[in-house]
């Protein structure tokens, strides 16, 4: 007997009575979604920035490798998507687009259609995500309603930069992935 058969057989043998699957109701959301999103993002150690602030950051900082798939920042992109993700190990700044966000926790949804390489938001030193203000939703339930059953090989909610508190519970930003996350709301 295969392990699949023995596992399924063991469960079937219990003849458990089916319990009901609940519906998920609507819950109240914040009145000011931009404000709620900003507060949540700050708590996650990310920041909201304007387009001008990002442009200023780029002009001030000696980033040597910048990649942008966001049309709003296209002119700053100075490299091509490589064949292998490892070749992006020296990427200084990535600017990508998020589809929508949930205000309660600043989680921004992206999937393969936003990511020319799945590794980009992690391997880059600094990350900027561009989200349309009108695409800020209230909470995670609304976010999953929006995703529906869309098919994408990979999808992710990003809510902040890479962080850890594994050393005596002291919060340190920049564990493995992006050291900073800036979100541009347009």
């Amino acid at each position, binding site marked *: 007997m*295969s*392990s*699949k058969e*023995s*596992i*399924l057989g*063991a*469960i*079937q043998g*219990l003849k*458990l*009575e*089916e*319990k*009901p*699957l*609940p519906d*998920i*109701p609507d*819950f*109240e959301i914040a009145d000011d979604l931009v404000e709620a999103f900003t507060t949540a993002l700050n708590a*996650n150690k990310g920041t909201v920035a304007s387009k001008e602030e990002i442009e200023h950051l780029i002009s001030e900082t000696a980033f040597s490798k910048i990649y942008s798939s966001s049309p709003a920042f296209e002119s700053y992109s100075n490299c091509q998507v490589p064949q292998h*993700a490892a070749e992006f*190990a020296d990427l200084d700044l990535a600017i990508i687009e998020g589809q929508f966000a949930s205000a309660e*926790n*600043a*989680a921004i949804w992206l999937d393969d259609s936003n990511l020319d390489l799945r*590794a980009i938001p*992690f391997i880059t030193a600094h990350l900027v995500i561009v989200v349309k203000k009108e695409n800020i939703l209230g*909470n*995670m*339930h609304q976010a*999953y*309603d929006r995703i529906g*059953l869309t*098919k994408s*090989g*990979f*999808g*992710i*909610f*990003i*809510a*902040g*930069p*890479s*962080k*850890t*508190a*594994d*050393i*005596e*519970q*002291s919060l*340190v930003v*920049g*564990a*493995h*992935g*992006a050291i900073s996350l800036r979100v541009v709301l347009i």
Partner: protein
Amino acid sequence: MSHPENATVFLKDKARAKWHDETLWIVREKRDATIHQIPEWEKLRELASQIKDHTLSKLDFYLEELERNATANGIKVHWAENAEEHNQIIGRILREKNCKTIVKSKSILTEECHLNPYLAERGVEVVDTDLGERIIQFLKQPPSHIVMPAIHLKKSDISDIFHEKLNTEKGNVDPVYLTHAARLHLREKFLQAKVAITGVNFAVAETGEFVVCTNEGNADMGVHLADTHIACMGIEKLIPRRKDLGVFLRLLARSATGQSITNYNSHFRSPSPGKELHLILVNNGRTKQLGREKFRNSLKCIRCGACMNTCPIYRRSGGFSYGSTVPGPIGSILSPGIDLKKYSTLPFASTLCGSCSDVCPVKINIHEQLYEWRQEITKANGSSLKGLSMKMANGIFKSPLAYRISGQLMRASLKNLPDSIIYNPLNAWGKGRNLPDLPEESFKAWYKKNRP
């Protein structure tokens, strides 16, 4: 394995034990602060509990649905009856790939299956990439907490081991400095690894996808750089619908650390072109637990760790005192199901104050199950000694176990802990009453020595 004896060892270092207790309590307070911002919190817990109850009641159906959809997505699905088979499956994939080094993000299941030693014996280097896990891996220790694996260590310990392994400055205990040293070290490993292993927080039957949550981004760094991703999950990690994730992602991080969500919540549905994605479904005793009516709903656990942070015994005895992969209150109801004899003291490592059940995001009646296990253990002793050693029968079961163990631990703790800890809110030991002065030697110990 005896919890009270191990706890006594932990309590020897008073300052550290106090720090441990207070730190976990702070995490518990953060959890409280964040859930108070969610008016529907109790409703969410109820929904999560019902969704899990429903899933467990037709687990066979959902497992088959998951397999069907995942396979259609291009995921290779494997079934493992036990830990050994789980390890063998991974061993086989690594052999096929001729792979000698892997990166692994946090997975309690691979701990449970003792994957690291299995692979080490076969010449494969496993690099744990969660910072806390890397630290304890350097120290050759198991995790002492399921969310904060290195919570038993102080920064000076970490500084010492990093000095030895990563050549950091001796005596530099700055967490930022130490974390960045680990970042550089692990980046190298990420860039070289051909195979990455991750755990699974949730798998969705409807879409055949699974979700992995981290704050560090280490799971994603691993899998997106490697050619092959192997994800390992217990069969209870399943949920029916994608929209159920909304409920669970709202609960998980808030319960675990008080954050509104983990910073990376990755949904894996198909491999990138040219890459491979494997999903291993592991039983390892879960169907047995499913068959135990009184203990069935322990399988609803989403491994948030909240019951540990709140538990007066866990906070004061440390994760290692449990001697099991999952420590704390939930570990004390899961472990006896795996090996009743070995873990017979764990259901007694509780004051039955019920704080664990109060914080549990999926509403597991943890403290009631602890009580039930006590009955089972006492029954096992009364009716039949089969399977229990004579030593235990004579040594432990002859006396009222609960009294003996909690007494020993309580004496050890009370002696060491200042009033501020004993009297903090929700501490069942100190709440609203003064604790009696405890005699150096309990009556029981006195009697043992002096009985006729």
